[in-house]
């Protein structure tokens, strides 16, 4: 019995031990391998967080050429999924590669203090292209500079992307088949959706296969949160976690009266079976595939997305039109807005960071700087300018044309993401280059489609109603408080909109209790911290 009990104790201890993840900080064992290859090139290790479509970066010829030119040999580690789950473990271990592409965030620099190199001095010594970028667009330097005046990640800038992420699409063919007008108010929209449900707008004889309305979970990009603009609420830059500014005040739409109005409207639509039953539970790939219908038969009537080709596929895209922002009722007097996402779409922070323990910081910086050379930046975004990559054609007279996909089965958007770093790469598309590039059909289409929102977007005042979240900087303490509170807030907001949408809950009655629980979960504190940072940002805005 005695021996048995010792064993049992050990096992009990084991259970206790197992639940504690063993994240030990690696001791400073330096890499044993030499840092120079036989040909005298500097060897660098890099990690890149890329889009799930993006092919092996080793197959990108423009990149190989770039490494050649910078006289470095890069060993790539490529991550295409769940980076936010993997990164804490990697960073906490302290063993990171020399270069980190698209892998860091401002909060990492605060929480893993000392892990990343201050790039400021390196840029001054080794990076003429980045210097040029900073002098042409000083706000990019502001974006990259942390509270302590240091730069831990180089920014990216496109400038040619539209100022809105999401568009609202409606199936014009269906409207025509049913003899309906394009809706201009929420009320008209409801009538149209009911007609979509009851009729057979896609004309295949089956009255039940039409989904009148479909969208992503509220917090994402392609969602009815855009309809908050009907009620005079100015969203901007993705409104991550619900934050926006109005009259220079940071607010959160999840506790705004206008969000209540929106949820009541959506609940009414859902209860009439006008919204897809899987709207909350489906993932993005299912959301996309449903809207692509089957063959020439469209399935979805009204939805949100980036561009018609991307959202509905080549065969169905011509059935859909972009729907301008709706008024709530015909006699509503609310100011109309559309989310101003110019910074969100065109500016990015932390495209590349360098490890503080890297032995070849100069070479690493040289390599990074090479990406910011204008012609290279174009290739980062659209694919290589050579016969292997087939991304861009050099017209020889200083102008360039983005080539259509070499793989005919792909739409231009998917081709770009497959063929290059695309929007995740480090780049500076100088304004001087804008008029010299002929964009691909998808981008031309995007700009054309989104033109209907231009007037509403430009109405948002830069100094009061646009909230560029990536420009905000926070101290270590604030970063921790924000993260902690946000996790608790999301726990409430995430489930509440979903339950309101799909049940008959009395939103009016639950609203006050909901708002006070969100506020007491830390929202008030987060708004104060964010307000302080926003005011500092406004003070520096010229």
């Amino acid at each position, binding site marked *: 019995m005695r021996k048995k009990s010792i064993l049992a104790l050990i096992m009990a201890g084991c259970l206790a031990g197992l639940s504690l993840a*063993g994240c030990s*900080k690696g001791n400073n064992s330096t890499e044993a391998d030499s840092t120079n290859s036989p040909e005298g090139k500097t060897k660098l290790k890099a990690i890149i967080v890329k889009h799930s479509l993006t092919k092996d970066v080793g197959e990108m010829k423009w990149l190989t050429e770039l490494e050649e030119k910078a006289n470095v040999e890069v060993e790539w580690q490529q991550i295409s999924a769940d980076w936010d789950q993997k990164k804490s473990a990697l960073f906490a271990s302290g063993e990171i590669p020399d270069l980190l592409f698209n892998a860091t965030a401002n*909060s990492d620099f605060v929480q893993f203090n000392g892990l990343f190199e201050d790039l400021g001095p390196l840029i001054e010594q080794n990076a003429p292209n980045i210097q040029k970028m900073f002098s042409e667009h000083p706000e990019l330097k502001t974006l990259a500079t942390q509270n302590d005046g240091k730069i831990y990640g180089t920014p990216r800038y496109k400038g040619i992307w539209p100022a809105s992420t999401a568009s609202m699409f409606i199936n014009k063919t269906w409207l025509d088949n049913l003899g309906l007008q394009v809706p201009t108010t929420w009320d008209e929209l409801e009538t149209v959706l009911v007609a979509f449900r009851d009729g057979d707008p896609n004309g295949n004889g089956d009255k039940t296969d039409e989904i009148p309305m479909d969208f992503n979970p509220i917090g994402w990009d392609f969602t009815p949160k855009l309809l908050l603009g009907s009620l005079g609420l100015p969203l901007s830059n993705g409104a991550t976690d619900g934050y926006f500014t109005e009259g220079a005040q940071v607010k959160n739409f999840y506790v705004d009266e206008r969000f209540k109005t929106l949820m009541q409207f959506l609940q009414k639509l859902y209860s009439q079976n006008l919204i897809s039953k*899987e709207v909350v*539970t489906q993932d993005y790939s299912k959301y996309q595939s449903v809207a692509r219908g089957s063959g020439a038969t469209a399935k979805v009537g009204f939805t949100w997305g980036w561009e018609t080709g991307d959202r509905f596929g080549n065969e169905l895209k011509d059935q859909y039109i972009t729907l301008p922002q709706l008024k709530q009722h015909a006699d509503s007097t609310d100011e109309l807005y559309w989310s101003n996402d110019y910074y969100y779409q065109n500016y990015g922070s932390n495209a590349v960071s360098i490890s503080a323990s890297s032995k070849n910081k100069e070479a690493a910086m040289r390599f990074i700087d090479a990406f910011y050379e204008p012609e290279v930046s174009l290739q980062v975004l659209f694919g290589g300018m050579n016969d292997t990559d087939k991304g861009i054609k050099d017209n020889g007279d200083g102008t360039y044309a983005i080539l259509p996909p070499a793989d005919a089965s792909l739409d231009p958007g998917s081709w770009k993401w497959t063929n290059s770093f695309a929007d995740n790469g480090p780049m500076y598309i100088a304004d001087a280059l804008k008029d010299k590039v002929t964009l691909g059909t998808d981008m031309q289409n995007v700009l054309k489609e989104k033109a209907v929102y231009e007037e509403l977007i430009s109405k948002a005042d830069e100094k009061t109603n646009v909230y560029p979240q990536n420009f905000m900087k926070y101290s270590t303490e604030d970063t921790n408080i924000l*993260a902690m509170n946000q996790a608790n807030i999301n*726990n409430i907001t995430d489930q509440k909109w979903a339950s309101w949408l799909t049940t008959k809950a009395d939103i009016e009655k639950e609203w006050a209790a909901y708002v006070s629980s969100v506020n007491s979960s830390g929202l008030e504190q987060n708004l104060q911290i964010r307000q302080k940072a926003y005011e500092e940002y406004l003070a520096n805005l010229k």
Partner: protein
Amino acid sequence: MKPAQTTLRGSGWLRKYAGHYQLWIMVLPAVIYIAIFCYGPMYGIQLAFREFDFSKGLTGGDWAGFKYFEQYFNSPMFWPTLRNTFIIAFFSILLGFPMPILLALVVNSIRSNRRKRILQTTVYMPYFISTVVLVALLQIMLSPTTGLLDGFLKALHLIPADTNLVGDPGAFVPVYVLSGIWQACGWNSIIFIAALSSVDGQQYDAARIDGANRWQTVWHVEIPAILPTIIILLIMNMGNILSVGFEKTFLMQNSLNKPVSEVISTYVFNVGVKSNQFSFGSAVGLFNTVINFTFLILANSLAKRTSKISLM
């Protein structure tokens, strides 16, 4: 086993243990393994009582005392996470624990070896499906629009037509528990089948002579034979009561079922790992472990008192 060497001198203590040295050598690898991989990492527990500071390392941060525990107890997520964890664990044990025993009894009563093997292999199979694949399967089969199983259940009117099995908060626990039983039942029954195979054939003969029917044989011969196994396994299960499978819960979670699916382990992940709050995460994890340990001890002493079978 009798001590092999009686000539050994020294204290009684030494003699007692040295006498079994062969056994000690056999257990040595396990002890080393546990010391290194289970006890070793436990120095990291102190993270729960310190302010994590990356630049100073895991054990270098300032002492924070019970700050992070208090933060968890005062957080609005304390009761919901604790309640959800308990509910899932309770039903998993209540329904999941007896099933393998029943299955083992059924398998044991099959005479034909071939049929027995076919049945056993069939019920083992799901165990080897990875959690990710299982949850993907569930999501496809139970989708309210295109799901095969969903359509089947609705056609038979076993569930109301407007139920969304992958979304409704009320459906989360049943789907979680039943799919868990489907997956692990066959595997967990192995140990009971093994215990049943050791029942002496004479006992069956004696029962038959006494005129026992099939039920009486199960009740008076087979159940008593595997009772120690059942109790030991139950005690060990109690020690895991709050360790609700992270992967499956996390994968099955969505905005709709979050009120019931946010358990301690997913909360630790969301706050501790995704938001880099390592100290807070460790504190919550440690709290979880302490509760588990308490349950283990309680179940053990209860079993000891009532049936004299226990781990220690």
